[in-house]
C-alpha cells in the first residue's frame, strides 16, 4: 500500500501529527493530473471536513475533474480526528496542522506544487503557516479573520449616529452612493446605521480611542502576505458583504495595505472579490455555488498558468 497506488476518486488517509494523526480524504483526479495539489483547510470547528451540505466534498470532486489532487482534513478534535479541539485563538493559529497536511500532500509523487483553500480561520492558519510551506503556488482565503475582532465594525458600533451621519454626507461619500457600486455602499450604510443605533445608548466612541479616523486592520495579516507575493504565490481573498470582517476588508482594499499589495503585484497575483450575503458558514446553497465557481475558476487559472481573468461570478471587490 502506498498513496501512490493510483486509485481514482476519494481515499481516506491518516496524516501523522505529533505522535497522533489527523483524518483526511484524498481525492485523486480521474483525468490526467496537472501535478497541482489543493489542500482545503476548513475553519477550526468540530464539524467534519466534508463541510456544510458536503460543500468541500463536491468542490474536491469538481477540482479532480480538472486534474487536481485534493486533500481535505479534520483538525485534532474535529470530525473524525482524535484529540480535543482547541478554542479558536487569533494568537495561536493551527500552523503545525496545516504544515503536516501540506507536506503530506506534497509528498505524493503526482504532486509538484500545492495551492491552499482556507475557509474562515483556516485561511488565517494557512497564511501563518505559509513561511514554512514549500512549493506553495496559491492561497485562497474566504472570509478570513483579519484581526481578533472586526475593528471597523467595533468602531462603527461605538460611534454616535450623529457622527456617522456627518461622515456619510461628505461629498466623497455621496459620490460613492451614486456610483456603480451604490448598492454595496447602501447595504454597508444601512448595516452600520443599525449597529450604531443598537449600541448608541450604552457606548461612546472614546471607549475604543477613536478620534475620527478609522484604524487600519492589524498590519500583521497583510505583512504576512508580502513574502508570499514576492515568491510569486497567487492570492485570492473572498468575502461576503455580511461577513464579520467585510468592512475591514473593504477599507483595506480601498486605501489600506491590501490596496498597496494589489497595486504593487497586480490584480492577477492578488485577486479580490466579494459576494452579496454571508460566506461564513455557507448557510445558503446559492452562495455555496458562487463560491465553488469562483474557486474552481481561480484554480483553473493557476492550473493553466494563464495570466488570469476576473473571477467569474464574483464581484471584483467592495
Amino acid at each position: 500500500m502506498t498513496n501512490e497506488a493510483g486509485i481514482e476518486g476519494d481515499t481516506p488517509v491518516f496524516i501523522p501529527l505529533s505522535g497522533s494523526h489527523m483524518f483526511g480524504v484524498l481525492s485523486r483526479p480521474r483525468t490526467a493530473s496537472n501535478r497541482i495539489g489543493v489542500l482545503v483547510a476548513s475553519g477550526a470547528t468540530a464539524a467534519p471536513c466534508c463541510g456544510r451540505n458536503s460543500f468541500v466534498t463536491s468542490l474536491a470532486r469538481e477540482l479532480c475533474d480538472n486534474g487536481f489532487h485534493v486533500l481535505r482534513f479534520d483538525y485534532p478534535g474535529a470530525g473524525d480526528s482524535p484529540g480535543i479541539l482547541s478554542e479558536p485563538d487569533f494568537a495561536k493559529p493551527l500552523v503545525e496542522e496545516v504544515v503536516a497536511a501540506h507536506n503530506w500532500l506534497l509528498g505524493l509523487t503526482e504532486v509538484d506544487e500545492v495551492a491552499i483553500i482556507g475557509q474562515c480561520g483556516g485561511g488565517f492558519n494557512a497564511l501563518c503557516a505559509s513561511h514554512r510551506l514549500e512549493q506553495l503556488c496559491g492561497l485562497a482565503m474566504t472570509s478570513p479573520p483579519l484581526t481578533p475582532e472586526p475593528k471597523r465594525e467595533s468602531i462603527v458600533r461605538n460611534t454616535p449616529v450623529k457622527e456617522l451621519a456627518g461622515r456619510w454626507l461628505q461629498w466623497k461619500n455621496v459620490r460613492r452612493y451614486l456610483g456603480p457600486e451604490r448598492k454595496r455602499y447602501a447595504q454597508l450604510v444601512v448595516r452600520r446605521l443599525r449597529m450604531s443605533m443598537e449600541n448608541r445608548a450604552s457606548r461612546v466612541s472614546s471607549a475604543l480611542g477613536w478620534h475620527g479616523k478609522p484604524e487600519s486592520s492589524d498590519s500583521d495579516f497583510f505583512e504576512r502576505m508580502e513574502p508570499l507575493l514576492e515568491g510569486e504565490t497567487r492570492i485570492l481573498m473572498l468575502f461576503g458583504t455580511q461577513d464579520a470582517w467585510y468592512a475591514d476588508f473593504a477599507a483595506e482594499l480601498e486605501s489600506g495595505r491590501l490596496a498597496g499589495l494589489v497595486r504593487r503585484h497586480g490584480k492577477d497575483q492578488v485577486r479580490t472579490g466579494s459576494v452579496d450575503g454571508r460566506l461564513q458558514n455557507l448557510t445558503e446553497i446559492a452562495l455555496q455555488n458562487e463560491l465553488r465557481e469562483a474557486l474552481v475558476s481561480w484554480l483553473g487559472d493557476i492550473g493553466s498558468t494563464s495570466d488570469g481573468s476576473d473571477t467569474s461570478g464574483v464581484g471584483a471587490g467592495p
Partner: protein
Amino acid sequence: MGAPGIDPSPSVGLLLTTLRVTLEATISAEVRDPRTGSIEAAGYVGPAGQRIFTYSHLPGSTARAGLLVCPALLRDFLGNYRREVELARALAAREVGVYRFHHRGTGHSEGEWLDASVDRLCQDATTIVHQMREQLADVPIGALGTRVGVFVAAASVARQPPEAPLVLWDPVVDAKGYLRQALRAQGIKNLRQKSRHAPSGSELARALVETGSIDLLGYLLPHSLHEDMIAVELPEILGDTPRSVLIVTKGPAPRDASVLGAELEARGFDVAFESVETGDSWWFDPELMPVVGTEDTPAAPAIPVLSPYVEVTLRWLRRLDGEAGGVSA
C-alpha cells in the same frame, strides 16, 4: 509503507497505515490506538459512484457486541457529528464494535442526495450491517439514531435479535413538525442575515412541493424524502420484537417522544428516558445563527470531552449489560 509524509516509526504509537482494495471496491485506511488497543478504519463500500463512506471502531480483542450509528441528516448531521465519534471511541474501548457511516449524497459518500428516500437510507444502513456481520460474527448489533436518523436506526435494529438495543437521541417522531421548525428557523435566519433569497415559511413550503426541493439552512431538502418521512411511523418500523430502547431528549421529553415511549411500552418494549441539559439547540446554535457584529465569531466553541448525550448513553448501556449481558459500556 512508503507513503510520503508518513512516519513509520513505532514511536508514533500507531500502526499506520494499510490500504486495501478488494473486488468489492472497499478502500480503507486503518490506525490502532496504542492506549486502548482499538482499531479504527475508514473506508468506502459499494459500487463506484454510489460508494458509502464508513468508519469502524473495533476493540483490540473480540467484540462482545456491535452498534450501528445512523447519522442525523441535514443541519443536524454536522451538529451531532462529534458526539457520535466520542460515543464510538468510548464503546470500542469497552469491547463494543461500532460502525458509523455517511448516507449516499451526504458527507464524504458518493451518490446524489436529491434521489434520497427512506428506503434508500435504510439500504445504506443494511449495507453497513452486512459489513459489520463480516467483522463481528454473531454478536447482537444495536443501533443509535439521532433526530430523523431514528427511522433508519429503527429499521436496522428491527431485523436484529431482541438482545440488540436501540438508542434514540432527540427522535423526530413527527416529520411535519420537524419541517415546520425547519422552515421557522430558515425564516428567522433570513430575517437576521437579511438574505437576498428570503422567502417566507409558507412560500418555502410551497416551493418544496413545486420545485421538488428547497434550501434549508444551506442544505437541500428533497420533497420526496420529506413525503417519505411523513408517511412512515416509527413504532411500525420498529416491528413487534420487544427490546430495550433508550430515548434521550434535550430537557424534559416532549409530548411526541413520551407518546412514542408509552406506545412501545404497551407493546412490551423496555423503554428508558434520559434528559440532558445542554446550551445547544438543534436549530439555533451559535454556529448556525451568528449575530452580525463584533460578537460574531467564525468558529463554534470547543466541544467538551464527553457530551451529556454520550455520558447518559454509556451509563444506560452499562446498566443494560449488567442486567442482561447485552452491549457493554
